């Protein structure tokens, strides 16, 4: 087996746990592909940089969901709550004079992480439909709160007047989105390194354990609830970074950053790419967004049909998303 597959239970092998951990953590050539593509796209498609930056923000957002859903096995319909908290934090900081973008990212991550920890501590006692509804209730409550606090957030009209200082004091955010693109790419790269480190760490392994066999994890005395809340809070913080990037690059925050619709969209992107494998986000988000961009261009009125058909087809014929299909093909070829 070449791919490190967290979805399949690891087979008993002769190697020691230390060797196994080291092997799965080793960097492989294909892991650099997204970055080659990102750099290539910058050179080849200078006029698609705005879309490119949006795609990378969604990749980051989907990646944060993968940590929660793919590794810790928590299915949520409210992940946009943390994206929204991050976006409003960064937006409000910039409106009130804190125009330095990078420090604002850290603040946004911290605020979203705290909200994630608190809400996770409360809702993660439940599972299944109840958990879905509770996460949905969280995102809806925050959305309503932001809507009602119009004097602070701008309500349904959106938060205006975000002005940013140049990046590192040198690079102004330009109309063509060059600086925004590079900024998003670098942040995404840093977060990716962090998540990669995390899922291959003992902590990440124990999360997979929670997902695969909850009873056994309880039996061996693992602090399951605490692990899940920690993962949830980290995922929330990363989603907060994605939201902050969105607020900074579009210089506008609207209520839809904190909506059920966005929670659903990011879920779709991740599942399209493949859940629980770190790279599903890198495939699913671009696939969904480019498909949406193209379809809505070709057929502005009925493009929903084609997106819907794509989803149904994926479930019917391509279980496990793009990466799942890749697996199947790979294993067929090997036989």
């Amino acid at each position: 087996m070449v791919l490190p597959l967290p979805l399949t239970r690891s087979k008993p092998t002769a190697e020691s746990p230390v060797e196994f951990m080291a092997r799965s953590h080793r960097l492989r050539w294909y892991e650099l592909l997204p970055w080659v593509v990102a750099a290539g796209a910058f050179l080849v498609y200078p006029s698609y940089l705005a879309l490119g930056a949006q795609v990378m923000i969604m990749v980051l957002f989907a990646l944060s969901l993968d940590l929660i859903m793919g590794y810790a096995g928590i299915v949520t319909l409210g992940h946009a709550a943390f994206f929204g908290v991050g976006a409003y934090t960064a937006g409000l900081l910039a409106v009130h004079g804190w125009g330095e973008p990078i420090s604002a990212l850290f603040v946004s991550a911290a605020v979203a992480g705290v909200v994630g920890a608190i809400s996770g501590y409360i809702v993660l006692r439940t599972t299944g439909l109840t958990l879905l509804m509770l996460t949905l209730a969280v995102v809806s409550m925050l959305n309503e709160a932001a809507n009602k606090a119009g004097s602070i957030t701008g309500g349904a009209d959106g938060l205006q007047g975000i002005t940013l200082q140049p990046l590192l004091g040198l690079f102004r955010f330009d109309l063509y989105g060059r600086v925004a693109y590079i900024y998003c790419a670098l942040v995404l790269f840093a977060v990716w390194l962090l998540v990669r480190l995390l899922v291959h760490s003992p902590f990440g392994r124990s999360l997979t354990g929670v997902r695969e066999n909850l009873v056994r994890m309880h039996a061996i005395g693992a602090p399951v609830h605490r692990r899940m809340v920690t993962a949830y809070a980290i995922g929330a913080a990363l989603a907060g970074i994605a939201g902050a990037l969105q607020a900074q690059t579009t210089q506008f925050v609207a209520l839809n950053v904190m909506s059920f619709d966005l929670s659903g969209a990011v879920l779709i992107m991740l599942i399209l790419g493949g859940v629980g494998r770190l790279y599903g986000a890198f495939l699913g988000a671009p696939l969904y967004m480019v498909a949406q961009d193209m379809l809505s261009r070709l057929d502005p009125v009925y493009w929903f049909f084609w997106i819907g058909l794509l989803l149904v087809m994926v479930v019917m014929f391509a279980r496990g998303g793009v990466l799942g299909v890749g697996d199947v093909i790979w294993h067929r070829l090997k036989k």
Partner: protein
Amino acid sequence: MRKLKSLLGLSCLAGAMLALPLAAKAAETVKVGLILSYSGQAAASVEEMDKAIRLYVKQHESELGDIKLELIRRDDTGPNPDMARRLAQELITRDKVNLLTGFYFTPNINAVAPLATEAKVPVVIMNAATSSSIRLSPYLVRVSFTEWQQGYPLGQWAAKQGMKNAYTAVTDYAPGHDVEASFSKAFSDAGGKIVGQVRMPLKNPDYIPFLQRIKDEKPEALLMFVPGSKDATAVMKAYSELGLQQAGIHLVATQDCVPDDELPNMGDVAPGVVTIGNYSVSATRPANVAFVAAWKKEYGPDSVPNFFAVGAYDGMAAIFDVVKAQKGKIDPDKTMELLKHWKNDNSPRGPIMIDPETRDIVQNMYLRRLEKVNGKLANVEFETIPMVHDMWPKLNPETPAH
């Protein structure tokens, strides 16, 4: 590199290619980016706007001579400012549009305004009716209407009819707040009293509870505003179902509650309801009669234009005029000068002009009564308030940027 580009880009470019002009060698090509909410909650109203745009182009294309006007349509899917902004950014940087137009929702134009300033791209707003939006960039001009243009004269009129107290019920977003504020200001300045107000959520399945509350309170007048389309019929039916009119509560509303194309859906709702608006399809001005006839010829006898359509129609007229005046060579600042002094004495809604100070529309407002004409509901104009300016800028002088 070239090979890589063709390989990678095949799919992505396919979409962009479709937008390329076929007659690329025409003398001048003017590109206009049209951002509207083709899908989502406003789809029905936006379809009216797009019909008006197609009709205007068809009627007047020949006037452009060999100038090619290319409309690039984009769907911002609803009140979705991030998307509107990204689409505008792409239209500016990728498609190199000379003008932007459309914009159904206020938040969307608000998000796009800073881009217009930065890229110096004139924007013709075809709908979004919040007064303050226009100040967000010197490159915006509005041809539709503002809610202050409706609410303020309506408040004055209601007080003049001897109504002493009023309850306001508006949808909870910027245009609704504008209607509430403008009506309340005019009504109380004229001696009336606002006895209660409610802001109803934007996403709202049922209006009955709000109206039942108002019925139980028994005010003399009820001011109402909801976004057009689906909400209009729902709220009007709720008004008639609960028998508010029989209970002696006079409904006064903006035209958003009675779009002409929705009237056939409303059944027998409350004849006699007074609304204010800049356009009614039943107006008998020759320009309007011709407009409606052309519309019905194009889209069938059952299709009627409404005030959304007229905003889009006049928006296209403004764009055509500046294109013709510059012979297809669009200079942003010259375009803004032309737009600021643009006027049309013969729009389907009567004479209109742009106020060069505010870049906002000046137009007649009409008081209309909902009546049965030949067995069908119609908004019959009975009083004209000539050339109404938006009152909001006068009451809210611009504060210097801090």
